């Protein structure tokens, strides 16, 4: 059947060239006037399968086969939630499994297999991946922005081209007028044969025309390559190379040779009471991070460091 026809009023494209078929979620088509008629109140049921429908859900049928239309619709709806990208998976295998799952869901819904169970899985998926879905949605938003940018750029290019064209035409006109005047002047004042003059002028006009023809051609190529695509620019970046990470850095306290008896530790200052013999710090000193135990330990360390010092002639560097 070549002809598109409304299943209800049997109007065909042939009889009514402005016929527009609309489909709803059930996948059954209706012509625009029937939709107007049946869904005056905003909602009603499909005349073929009695599924309750809303008028706002009707859209123009793009595909001849209404089943395809239904599938497209369902796919759109499912993909709104199942919007993971390949980057979200660690292996290709997992990504493929995920794609297969999506396909199964779409098939089930279009062919009314296990509709309830499938809807349940969708709900569950939505719950589990709430964050990821939201994140990916915003990512899509960014892609759209890019597209818009692209369109904007194209528009600008268009405008420039138009302006160029106008300018070019004006110049052409002026040139023609000038040439004409020159020709008349020549004819009026020169002593040469009028025929000769006409011929040379015709020749020169011909040559300039040829030149002109060449110029826009070059421009056209410039324009066609001049457009830059935002996406392409982005893809120019090399992928960040994955660096093989070595073992993690482990802090090791620096070791100071004391060359003397071992100084007390931080704990010893408190426990053995060294700190009691230091002037305690004032509030304004603490603001700068100073604590009296710092200077206490430092003094003790310096007092003990080098006590065993023996100058050795072998070590001497002079």
């Amino acid at each position: 059947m070549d002809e598109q026809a409304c299943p209800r009023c049997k109007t065909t494209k042939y009889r009514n060239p402005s016929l527009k078929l609309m489909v709803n979620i059930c996948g059954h088509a209706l012509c625009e006037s029937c939709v107007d008629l049946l869904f005056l109140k905003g909602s009603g049921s499909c005349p073929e399968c009695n599924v309750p429908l809303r008028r706002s859900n009707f859209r123009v049928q793009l595909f001849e086969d209404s089943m395809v239309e239904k599938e497209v619709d369902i796919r759109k709806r499912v993909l709104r939630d199942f919007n993971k990208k390949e980057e979200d998976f660690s292996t290709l295998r997992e990504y493929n499994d995920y794609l297969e799952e999506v396909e199964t869901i779409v098939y089930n819904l279009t062919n009314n297999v296990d509709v309830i169970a499938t809807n349940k899985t969708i709900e569950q998926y939505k719950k589990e991946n709430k964050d990821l879905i939201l994140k990916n949605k915003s990512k899509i938003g960014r892609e759209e922005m890019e597209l818009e940018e692209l369109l904007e750029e194209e528009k600008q290019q268009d405008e420039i081209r138009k302006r160029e064209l106008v300018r070019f035409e004006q110049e052409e006109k002026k040139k023609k007028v000038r040439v004409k005047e020159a020709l008349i002047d020549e004819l009026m004042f020169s002593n040469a044969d009028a025929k000769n003059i006409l011929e040379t002028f015709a020749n020169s006009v011909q040559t300039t025309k040829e030149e002109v023809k060449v110029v826009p051609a070059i421009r056209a190529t410039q324009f066609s390559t001049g457009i830059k695509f935002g996406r392409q620019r982005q893809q120019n970046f090399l992928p960040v190379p994955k660096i093989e990470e070595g073992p993690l850095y482990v802090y090791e306290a620096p070791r100071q040779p004391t060359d003397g008896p071992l100084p007390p530790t931080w704990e010893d200052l408190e426990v053995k009471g060294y700190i009691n013999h230091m002037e305690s710090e004032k509030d304004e000193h603490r603001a700068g991070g100073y604590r009296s135990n710092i200077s206490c330990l430092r003094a003790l360390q310096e007092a003990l460091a080098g006590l065993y010092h023996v100058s050795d002639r072998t070590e001497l560097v002079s």
Partner: protein
Amino acid sequence: MFPVSTQKKYWTFVDETDLIRLRQEANRKFVLKHGANMTEEQRKQTFLSAADERLLLRQYELQLRDFCRRFNPPMPRSVIGTAFHYFKRFYLHNSVMDYHPKEILVTCVYLACKVEEFNISIQQFVANIKGDREKASDIILNDELLLMQQLNFHLTVHNPYRPVTGLLVDIKTRCSLKDPDRLLPGIEELLERTFLTDACLLYAPSQIALAAILHAASKIQENLDSYVTETLFGRPSIDILPNIIEAVRKIRSLVRSIENPPREMVRQLEKKLEKCRNQENNPDSEIYKQRMQDMLDEEDERSSETYARLAREQANDEERLLGISKVLSPSAS
């Protein structure tokens, strides 16, 4: 920390013979350079000997101490200690006749102020100097770099003051001595006097600090021997304790042996020095002024020189081009 410092590695020597050898070396080098065509007799007549230099330096060390004491605003002790270190280190490798100690002295103090973070401007600094302040600040700023270079840029100095504080805290914590603060005057006295000796070029700052504390204890008739042997060193291995006892004994005997240089002799030596000193480094001499002027001119000259060179190059280029053009167009002539 002292054990890993440049002070230990490069500026702590085995014993006094090392220091004497270095000083004699510096003296000999100067004499050989400036008295190249003199007889031995003449040399003795004109130049100072290493011992003479030592005597003069002692005199100037006293001056350094007094200068720091009178300094306004009063400076922390660590600045004085560091200045003494610099002064001693400088004259280990340089002769008094080459650089006059009165100039190096103030430069040492100025550099020590900077290194020990005693913030003071050159104007404030020279306000403490009698005489022509303009000239003094010129000398100091001129000599500062030379001094650092001679110190091999080893500017960090470990003074015995902090170790003294540490040992006192340790004594208060681990020793039954009553009122250890009584030790302070004795400690102060010894530390001050050690700077007039070569002790800081021979021993670790903590050893000097220990010597000062033991000295102070003996002055007030207290005995800290049991604290040192048992508490401070715990159970030391046999070869460590005698070494420390020897170091403390040596420091104390060094301090005891200080004697002020006789005035008359110093005056004579000063006169001799004025005659034999290296005139290139004497800010009052014509040679020195000439050299300074040359240095200034040199800077000016360098720019005018580059200009002249550029002009010459350009002239050459032009000549070359003209020459070529003549060759290229023989038919024109």
